[in-house]
């Protein structure tokens, strides 16, 4: 607890979370859409969402632009991302296939689903957090690979 960063991280998390939820609220009340990142991206990738492609592209542009603005004032650019190509490719494929088969990810099932007490959102979130926890346990605690 002697680390200042550790003491403030939860607060940044809460404030950032409020903004994430506010974005979802604006998208829902304004456009009648559920703010699910995997669905918005996936619909562009597989062609199923081309009928409202402009809305998706503009939304995603906003997601890219705001961090650029924030970073002008606050260096929050640390990603700690791995440079292991095999790990990145495996992770990307799993995230891409998994979120599309499940029809949602942390934003759609997690934030938007749970907040309206959707059973599907709650169950999906329980399963991806459990699978993530077990994967971490295996690859970090047992194997020490990541």
């Amino acid at each position, binding site marked *: 607890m002697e680390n200042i960063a550790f003491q403030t991280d939860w607060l940044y998390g809460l404030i950032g979370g409020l903004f994430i939820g506010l*974005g979802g609220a604006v998208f829902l009340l*304004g456009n009648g859409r559920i703010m699910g990142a995997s669905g918005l991206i996936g619909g562009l990738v597989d062609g199923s969402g081309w009928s409202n492609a402009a809305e998706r592209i503009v939304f995603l542009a906003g997601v890219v632009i705001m961090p650029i603005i924030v970073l002008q004032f606050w260096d929050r650019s640390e990603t700690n991302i791995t440079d292991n190509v095999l790990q990145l490719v495996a992770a990307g494929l799993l995230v891409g*296939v998994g979120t599309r088969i499940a029809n949602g990810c942390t934003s759609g099932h997690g934030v938007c689903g749970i907040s309206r007490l959707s059973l599907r959102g709650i169950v999906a979130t329980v*399963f991806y957090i459990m699978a993530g926890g077990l994967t971490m346990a295996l690859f970090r605690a047992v194997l020490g690979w990541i």
Partner: protein
Amino acid sequence: MKLVIALIAGMLFGGGLVVSGMTDTAKVQGWLDVFGAWDPTLAFVMGGAMFPMAIAWILTKGRSPMTGGNFPAPPEPKLGRNLIVGSVLFGMGWALAGLCPGPSIAAISFGGTSLWIFLVAMGAGMFIAPRVRAMMDA
């Protein structure tokens, strides 16, 4: 108007992801690392996000979206195998890289080559997903 709203929503989402620290893969992996140095930040992010979102859902009752059309139908009660299998695969990938789809887009401007490799792989996964789903349904 739809596009202006989409841009504002995207900016709030992207800004929130960076401020909350969700573009830092160490924080996400720390949340999932219950046997190591567990990092509870993600719970605060999720909790914080659900508060405005829950209010928004309540506000949809008896109203229509500002730009017309209809609000999404009530959530389906059916769970199904795809939801479970997909979520398990997603959770595994989420842990491996510490990234989910939203933050992977938010970090485009500063994530470097590694992030792009993840993005291309995620795009490929999303591209083949309809075929994988068809195989599962067969």
